[in-house]
């Protein structure tokens, strides 16, 4: 039996760029170049490792996003994923995470899967709740925020390093997992991988294909409302001293004392 692994990825504005908001207070995706969210590379990596351990496996990478989101899919395909699904519909623009999770859940059901792998959060929204929402919508166990993951005998197992404790988790397939940036360095696409990715199938889906009403998604279907988004005034540089005379620590102590920290 083929182990069907679905990886959910997001196309995000480059975090090193000057990110901002568009007039409708959604994330501006025009001013800054986009790419596969760095944290999703870990998800693709773990999916590939699980598939390499399995006798027979297939890795499908899914995204919901505009035309350019194809770049994120290509990157995942060049890393080694087998095929891709791109949900692209103008009506989705402005969806909040509740709306996005509805679209992804339907796309996952249509695609078919035994295991869903997600990153720990996106680098733009940084909420980290999409995997939990998918588990809720699909009525599947969630084994999330894993720094180690493996699939053995129809079970997914993993280690979750929380704030207060480290937990070892176990859930029967099908299940939803998310992996952290501690799960293992993601591979770089090889030249061969990049060339092969160009020939791999990318299925295009619209809301109609998923039987989702337009008013369930987008800005109108969003259950949250952004009232304002203002650039924070940049921090201004204060005093800079050097330790040339060997008294840098003393100078710093004087500053901290003046600020009543010591």
């Amino acid at each position, binding site marked *: 039996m083929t182990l069907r692994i679905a990886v959910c990825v997001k196309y995000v504005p480059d975090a090193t760029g000057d990110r901002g908001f568009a007039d409708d207070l959604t994330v501006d995706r025009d001013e800054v170049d986009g790419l596969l969210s760095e944290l999703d590379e870990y998800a693709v990596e773990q999916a590939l490792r699980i598939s390499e351990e399995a006798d027979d496996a297939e890795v499908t990478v899914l995204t919901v996003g505009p035309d350019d989101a194809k770049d994120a899919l290509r990157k995942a395909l060049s890393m080694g994923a087998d095929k891709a699904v791109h949900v692209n519909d103008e009506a989705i623009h402005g969806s909040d995470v509740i709306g996005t999770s509805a679209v992804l859940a339907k796309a996952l059901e249509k695609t078919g899967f035994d295991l869903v792998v997600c990153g720990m959060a996106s680098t733009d929204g940084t909420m*980290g*709740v999409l995997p939990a929402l998918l*588990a809720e919508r699909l009525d599947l166990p969630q084994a999330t925020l894993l720094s180690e993951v493996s699939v053995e005998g129809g079970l997914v197992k993993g280690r979750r390093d929380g704030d207060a404790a*480290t937990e070892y988790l176990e859930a029967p397939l099908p299940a939803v997992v998310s992996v952290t940036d501690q799960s293992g360095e993601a591979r770089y696409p090889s030249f061969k991988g990049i060339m092969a990715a160009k020939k791999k199938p990318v299925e295009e889906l619209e809301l109609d294909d998923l039987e989702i009403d337009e008013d369930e998604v987008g800005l109108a279907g969003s259950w949250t409302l952004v009232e304002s988004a203002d650039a924070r005034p940049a921090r201004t540089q204060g005093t800079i001293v050097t330790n040339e005379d060997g008294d840098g620590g003393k*100078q710093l102590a004087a*500053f901290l004392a003046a600020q009543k920290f010591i």
Partner: protein
Amino acid sequence: MAEILVLVDHADGAVRKPALELLTLARRLGEPSAVVLGAGEATDAVAATAAEYGAGTVYVADGAEFADLLVVPKVDALTQIAKEKGVAAVLVTSSGEGKEIAARVALRLGSGLITDAVELEAGAEGPVATQSVFAASYQVKSRVSHGVPVITVKPNSAAPEAAPAAGTVETVTVAFTGNAAKVVSRTARVSTGRPELTESAIVVSGGRGVGAAEGFEVVEKLADSLGAAVGASRAAVDAGWYPHSNQVGQTGKQVSPQLYVAAGISGAIQHRAGMQTSKTIVAVNKDPEAPIFDLVDYGVVGDLFEVLPQLTEEIGAR
């Protein structure tokens, strides 16, 4: 008065500080009620503390499920209470687990969700949350426009203030829904004796410039002289010099202390995302061109192995 449901995190019979902050914030929105979930442990002291910080009612539920199964039992409990009591908002601490719980509760209630609020105010159309986004370069104000607002709030967003209330305990029997991952084993994190990173008023962090795991000794000594938590940049964590649980940055902890000391940290966007909202920032770095100096209130260009011990000594002498 509107009932505001607060999920109260607790450990070893004590309420964790972020939950006291939530109770304090909840009083701006209405009358707080606390939800205390336990798996066999005594929760009397937790309920009493919740009352001291303003909980009119404390809903207590007990079940092995809360410890044995991931996330879902807590979602079951919170959703059930929110529905039965017709609450006006649900507040949860922004932790990995807290956000996951909140998200699933929101979906079950048919409600909008806001995560990582750093400020919360009552508004004409419901609570208005402030979030700090894009590596803290933007401040966003938003509100939930559908259903009962479910909001997670970051630690250190408010100073806890006591405001004694009745704290009437109501025992709740939760109907569990299942289909959760099993927690096969749990190892509590060993306490370092230092303050919790996200809750500490002062944080001292080391980065690539620390050079080795042993190098963190000077960082720890300074931290201890200030009663501070110790943080580390991703470079230092990836190099294996300091535990991931102490990582400050986009994929680690986001801290917002009164004072942040960056030692040997260049200040990449990844790191800035985790500390840029600190009140006062100071840095020690050999490289005068390090981007961290653009953010600082006070910076020393120099070797951290000379500057930090001298500073520690000065603090000890005061």
